[in-house]
């Protein structure tokens, strides 16, 4: 029998395989890609015993339907509060469960958030390209064939740690409940291309996420910013979260699929700890920026790293609205067990 695999039954347009990203090739123009919400991606991976940066499925607003083949597949789902159904029964996220062959798992966008992650115990046996499975559709790198996942795709699992059957359980991951009203930034590297009062206005006025946003850039709508001098700079490097201000004055936040270099002034950079929650904004959502110093940004980053250093706890679902044959299929474990301990 072949190794267990996940079969994509249906996939919305924005569904891709992402690991922690492609590193070491930015200098050749190769984008890093990687998850839009790295904290949620890592949480899903860790909950099924994978390395934090292992290959997982990033599901966009278009949703995803999955089935297990050639054996059961233990999955964790974390990220935006998508509506998850197992054979039509709604389950709360973040969660972990074992998907049996023949069962139907579906994720649909919920009321908020933009990206949800599906990690499989053992991850996927997807061949890396330049050291990474991260999909960058614009350059056709990573994933199965450089593109998004589509109906019919088959994802064989990697070397599976035998976790056995895992009762559907809610993951306890309070670090994923993050503010979406304030996005913290470190000013620079080109804030001196703007008058002080323009920088002040950048930090105080509300911004709204444009519907033209994608994995490459989040476009912002609001009162345009004016440059003190020119807006064409000689191209330099672009960090994840860099906020470019092109000539028209509306900022573009450079996200996971950004080009490694670019030629517009960057007024500020979203701090790493807020990149994931910022990525989860829906078009039309409003927020403000707040400037912090490097020490604050590093402390926030450390806080998230420490949260992920502990096992992800889980509590089995106790449901009374499920049919008895469904309940009989569940192994209801009392109490809280570590995600990395063998499941009972």
């Amino acid at each position: 029998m072949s190794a267990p695999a996940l079969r994509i039954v249906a996939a919305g347009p924005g569904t891709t395989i992402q690991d922690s990203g492609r590193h070491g090739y930015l200098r050749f123009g190769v984008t890093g890609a990687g998850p839009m919400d790295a904290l949620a991606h890592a949480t899903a991976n860790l909950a099924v015993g994978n390395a934090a940066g292992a290959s997982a499925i990033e599901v966009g607003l278009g949703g995803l339907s999955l089935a297990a083949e050639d054996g059961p597949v233990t999955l964790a789902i974390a990220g935006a509060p998508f509506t998850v159904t197992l054979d039509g029964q709604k389950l709360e996220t973040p969660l972990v469960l074992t998907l049996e062959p023949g069962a139907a798992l579906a994720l649909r966008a919920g009321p908020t958030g933009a990206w949800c992650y599906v990690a499989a115990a053992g991850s996927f046996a997807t061949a890396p390209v330049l050291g990474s499975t991260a999909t960058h559709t614009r350059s056709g790198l990573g994933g199965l064939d450089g593109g998004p996942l589509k109906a019919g795709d088959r994802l064989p699992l990697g070397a599976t740690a035998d976790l056995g059957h895992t009762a559907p359980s809610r993951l306890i991951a309070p670090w994923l409940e993050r503010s979406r009203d304030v996005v913290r930034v470190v000013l620079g590297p080109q804030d001196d291309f703007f008058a002080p009062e323009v920088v002040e206005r950048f930090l105080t006025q509300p911004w709204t996420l444009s519907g033209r946003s994608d994995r490459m850039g989040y476009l912002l709508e609001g009162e345009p910013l004016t440059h003190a001098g020119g807006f064409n700079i000689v191209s330099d490097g672009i960090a994840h979260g860099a906020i470019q201000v092109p000539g028209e004055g509306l900022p573009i936040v450079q996200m996971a699929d950004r080009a490694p270099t670019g030629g517009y002034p960057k007024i500020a950079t979203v701090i790493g700890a807020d990149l994931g929650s910022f990525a989860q904004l829906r078009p039309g959502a409003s927020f403000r920026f707040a400037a912090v110093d490097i020490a604050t940004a590093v402390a926030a980053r450390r806080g998230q790293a420490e949260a992920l250093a502990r096992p992800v706890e889980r509590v089995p679902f106790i449901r009374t609205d499920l049919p008895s044959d469904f309940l009989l299929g569940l192994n209801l474990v009392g109490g809280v067990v570590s995600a990395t301990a063998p499941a009972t």
Partner: protein
Amino acid sequence: MPAPRLLDAGETALVAEFGNEVDPVLSDRVLALDAAVTARALPGVRESVPTYRSLMIHYDPLVIDRATLAAEVTALAQAAPAEGRRGALWTIPCCYDPEFGEDIATIAATTGLPPDEVVALHSSARYRLYMYGFAPGFCYLGGLPDVFAKVSRRLKPRPPHPPNVVMMAGGLASIATVSMPTGWFLVGRTPERMFSLTRTPTVLLDVGDELMFEPIDRATFDALEARAAAGEVVARREVQP
């Protein structure tokens, strides 16, 4: 060499900026610091990205703090030689046939040069690979003859160009490997792949290398294209005196 200005691009990237221009002297400094940072292999430094005028150093601030990195970079810049290493010289075959050089007529009209002269000037200049960026293997080249400075960018990007095109815009030249929409003007097409996942090496040229374009006719292009498609390197690395 002179100390670079250090700028923060968030808490995970430090920019060492040597100036604001496209200038081989600045580029030499960038590349010297890039070599020194790479050789130093500090724990927590993930990768560095050389550009025309600056080096972006991506780092993990939970492994190396900003102050330590800044002190290291400043010391490395002071110790680095201001003279860059001598780059290799490459000859890149380029077919300027109208089918490939679809914007030569526009460039001729903009500059007042006959189309033949556009090709003659473009293929007699010596270019420097200042940086990669934008897309895999996208080469930003300096050294475009001044007469082409009048050629700005397209007002609107054109739909995705074919792979392996040679372009100009804003006083710069470029070679684009991956098909993308572009604001640049197409001058010709090379059979060479500046980036190929199915060939070793993946990337042919180092930043700081120089190159010239060698005009080839359509029949030669087709022959070289077939060889390049099979994984052969069809650009020539010249032996410099």
